[in-house]
């Protein structure tokens, strides 16, 4: 039973059909002959489909290899072009709960390119207060190169006040990037209406294939390229376009956006049932991220994230896996060693609290009975995980040390 849709979600039938159909044909969309024209047609159809699904103009869609590349291109590209235009622009205002694709890019720019990272505060739900952004802009507007705040958080599901942040930035002509990898396809996302300069999306979080994504770039925004070559995508992104993946991505985007209001309502309903069930069966569990009981879109519809006091998320994950429930601790491993989530720490949790994290994310294959199975398996798993305790406690096993007294 799969409750890790935020990691990746099973491919949709429509995407699989488009993918296999295009894989059986060949042609480089940059070629001028018949095969090339045919492939180009598919790519440009897909571009229009993605544009329609995201509220963008087709020329604003830059295909990439996924969300990570899109985030890198946006943050580095904006920083370099803004800094080149005016060397005073060195500050990057960044939320501390960003995905590593943004977080590590900002840290890299700080270390190697002379940028100054300004880590915005977040409240206990992981939401950036707009006043804090305003304060940092006002401190020295001419020195801000860009602002980057994700649309919705991948761990705790909280939705950020992107529109308000954009409004504050636009008054000073500062560009804003948003990582909408988790939001797109799950919440209404309209690039034009958002006023964003750039926005990252990816295929495999919406039922498309892995390895394809896009950066939406407003037509008047200048980005310095990160990777150089044939300049296939508006001279901003080079590399032969992956026609089958792009076609499948577009098929998935069209499908999810077409079903969005109904599916979001269905998932939010399941999510609330899951949250109620978890809190009922394990009263110690603490919901993390913005609550959204009224289902007003303040949290990703498919996201439920908890901390379970006194146990390690790792142990819980292991025990749930044994019981046939696939979940996640929500945070990436650092060098193979599980570390407390930077998102939870930024929200003010202690390391010990953060270690007990468990994320359940729902998607198009999730059913009512999946939620029941989780709620039924959780109490025993939690009791055992708690017994296994936190690493670092004194052992109760008799060892040579205890035997010798």
């Amino acid at each position, binding site marked *: 039973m799969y409750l890790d849709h935020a990691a990746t979600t099973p491919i949709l039938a429509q995407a699989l059909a488009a993918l296999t159909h295009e894989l059986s044909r060949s042609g480089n969309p940059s070629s001028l002959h018949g095969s090339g024209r045919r492939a180009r047609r598919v790519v440009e159809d897909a571009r229009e489909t993605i544009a329609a699904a995201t509220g963008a103009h087709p020329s604003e869609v830059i295909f990439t290899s996924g969300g990570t590349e899109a985030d890198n291109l946006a943050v580095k590209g904006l920083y370099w072009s803004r800094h080149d235009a005016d060397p005073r622009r060195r500050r990057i205002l960044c939320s501390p709960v960003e995905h590593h694709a943004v977080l590590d890019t900002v840290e890299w720019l700080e270390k190697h390119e002379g940028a100054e990272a300004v880590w915005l505060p977040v409240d206990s739900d992981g939401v950036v207060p707009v006043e804090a952004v305003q304060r940092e802009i006002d401190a020295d507007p001419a020195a801000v190169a860009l602002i980057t705040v994700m649309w919705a958080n991948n761990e705790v599901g909280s939705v950020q006040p992107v529109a308000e942040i954009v409004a504050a930035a636009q008054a000073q002509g500062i560009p804003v990037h948003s990582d909408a990898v988790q939001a797109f396809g799950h919440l209404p996302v309209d690039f034009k209406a958002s006023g964003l300069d750039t926005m990252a999306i990816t295929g495999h979080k919406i039922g498309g294939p892995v390895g394809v994504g896009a950066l939406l770039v407003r037509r008047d925004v200048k980005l310095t390229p990160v990777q150089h070559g044939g300049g296939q995508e508006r001279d901003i992104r080079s590399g032969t376009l992956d026609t089958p993946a792009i076609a499948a991505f577009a098929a998935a985007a069209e499908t999810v956006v077409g079903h969005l209001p109904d599916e979001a309502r269905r998932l939010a309903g399941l999510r609330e049932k899951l949250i109620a069930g978890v809190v009922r069966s394990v009263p110690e569990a603490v919901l993390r991220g913005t609550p959204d009981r009224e289902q007003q879109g303040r949290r990703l519809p498919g996201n439920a994230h908890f901390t379970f006091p006194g146990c390690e998320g790792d142990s819980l994950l292991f025990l749930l896996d044994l019981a046939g429930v696939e979940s996640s601790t929500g945070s990436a491993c650092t060098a193979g060693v599980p570390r407390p989530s930077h998102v939870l720490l930024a929200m003010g949790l202690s390391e010990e609290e953060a270690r007990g994290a468990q994320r359940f994310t729902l998607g198009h294959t999730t059913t009512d009975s999946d939620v029941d199975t989780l709620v039924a398996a959780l109490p025993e798993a939690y009791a055992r995980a708690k017994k296994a305790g936190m690493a670092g406690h004194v052992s109760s096993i*008799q060892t040579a040390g205890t035997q010798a007294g």
Partner: protein
Amino acid sequence: MKVLAAMSGGVDSAVAAARAVEAGHDVVGVHLALSRMPGTLRTGSRGCCTIEDSRDAWRACDILGIPYYVWDFSERFKEDVVDDFIAEYAAGRTPNPCMRCNERIKFAALLEKALALGFDAVCTGHYAKVIEDEHGNRELHRAADWAKDQSYVLGVLTHEQLKHSMFPLAETPSKAEVRAEAARRGLSVANKPDSHDICFISDGDTRGWLAEKIEMESGSIVDQDGQVVGEHEGANAFTVGQRRGLKLGRPAPDGKPRFVLEIRPKENKVVVGPEALLAVDQMRGIKVSWAGLPLPEVEAQTAFDCMVQVRAHGDPVAARAQSELDDDGRQQLVVTLIEPMRGVAPGQTMVLYQGTRVLGQATIDSARSLSWDPAKVS
């Protein structure tokens, strides 16, 4: 049984896990993260603790079709093994961190977590054998292949720990056999080099590593009669039995080379003397533990014959041992060697055997030649 296979990323633990799977157990592979900042790739002769080793373990689990997890024991490892290693050296003793890791991490912290999570046993790639008698009591024995036998580093396990230990390589005739088996099973670690050295000292330079952790202070080098014969730049830089690097200005009266006999950190003194005095006749052990049920002679505090081994790859020598209680009622072990033995330093572990059976172990507190009275040096 539900078995947790501790996977270092090496060939031995991979084959041990494979055999546990084949025996019909329900096996889960776990790699122990012992450092928060592991190196990315293997360098030097280390065989664990890098990302590459973790990936090798993961790959082995994939091939065996078993789940794989990384558990973080870095805090426990630092406190119980690394800090202890430094403290022991600072106190002038020579510890064995691998034994400490077996005692406190693999068969304690890891085992305890495993039991709590519903496992019955921890399986490792150690070359050693556990035998159970008709009453369900466990005994630890040497592996079939004495050349690879690792019962010494497991000598620290208690009966309770042995009850939950599984060593599937016990009867393996040789390491070559294990490699061949790994290749047969399609395990890509089949030809991975053996690990040696201390896993947390990446370049193998123990002295250099310790010098950064322990404050060194210059002091005097004295001979076996207490006469000052030289200067040192830090007593902890020396090992018992060391001959080179003493930089003594004056030769010994008999013109023969001198060796480090003893390190006295409290007085910051290094005691040197002739080779003959390195021969140890008697050792006193503290922190005694028994691998399984103790012999009747232990309870009775009477002497018994045994073989004693003081390092992982040392030869066992014949001895008579007797258990005693100190003033606080703690067990001590007095071991008298039939033939004197060289290269014994306080802090080392002595493991007692009868035949292939491991009786128990103690940490050497003092080791002396009966022809020399250390009290002469003051």
